[in-house]
């Protein structure tokens, strides 16, 4: 009974603040400063959630619809350059993008604004990996895929398990 009351209270609190999520500037600050020597551009902040800054609320511009970082292995931080990421939207429309020397890729929202949910797969020289679940609302891969993973994040996007 108490648990239900608690859920109720929680629902109220959440309802009254449902549009805010946590404060955007805190999210940005939590990502820290730029790494020294890396310009603000396509090789910066590999592994970080690009859309936190390039999702329309700043400070990054332009705005991306899909962006992330791809690694060779689940257990290792070596980037995978030249992988092809294929994104298919709810209308069956799809785009392919290549990853760069740090594993990063992005699609600018002005170029393609896909309809969610999205299906994702990637390939590299005959090997491939597919995401079984769907991306329902956030086109930033590293929003969900982070480092070695934990109970709230899947591990980095990778081609090979080992």
């Amino acid at each position, binding site marked *: 009974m108490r648990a*239900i009351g608690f859920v109720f209270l929680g629902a109220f609190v959440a309802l009254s603040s449902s549009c805010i999520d946590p404060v955007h500037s805190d999210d940005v600050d939590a990502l820290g400063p730029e790494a020294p020597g890396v310009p603000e551009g396509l090789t910066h902040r590999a592994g970080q959630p690009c859309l936190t800054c390039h999702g329309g609320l700043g400070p990054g511009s332009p705005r991306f619809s899909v962006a992330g970082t791809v690694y060779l292995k689940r257990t290792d931080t070596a980037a995978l350059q030249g992988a092809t990421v294929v994104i298919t939207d709810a209308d069956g429309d799809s785009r392919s993008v290549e990853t760069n020397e740090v594993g990063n890729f992005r699609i600018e929202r002005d170029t393609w604004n896909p309809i969610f949910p999205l299906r994702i797969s990637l390939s590299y020289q005959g090997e491939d990996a597919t995401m079984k679940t769907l991306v329902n609302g956030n086109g930033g891969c590293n929003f*969900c895929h982070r480092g070695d993973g934990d*109970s709230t994040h899947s591990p980095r996007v990778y081609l090979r398990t080992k």
Partner: protein
Amino acid sequence: MKRFLLVSMSIAIFAACAGSPKQSTDSAGGADRAQFTPVSGMLLRRCGSLDCHGRIYRNFRLVGVGGRRLDDKYYPDGPATTEDEIDHNFQAILGIEPEIMRTVIAEGGANPQRLTVVRKGRGSEDHKGGQRIGLGDDADICLTSWLASDVDSDACARATTQRLP
């Protein structure tokens, strides 16, 4: 003496049942935990990704494989969803509108659209995630058959494994 034994035995049986998952059934006015497992899978798949109801910032929070995990040692990509997680999801759906849920279930699942979870899922009520369940599709049948206390597990399974679009 015999009578005493009998009485204490029935109390023991009562207590045993009250401690089982059936207890949540009672507090929910008939919502069936035993039938909920396939529904949990469907909800997780359609609604529970880490960018939606797998986030802790949502009031209706789902957990399990493919989304957020209850156990700190688990990952979104494995191992499989646990019974504890299904319990959590069961309480989560009941906790949205307990009174209306009770009424809908007591009335054999009639007019399920009285529930905001059904309306939001179907996209007929303002929903950040838009429409995730189509009126009359497998996911819809799964959810509404459970509300009618006669879950269509096959529909749930199809809705869980289906590739969208």
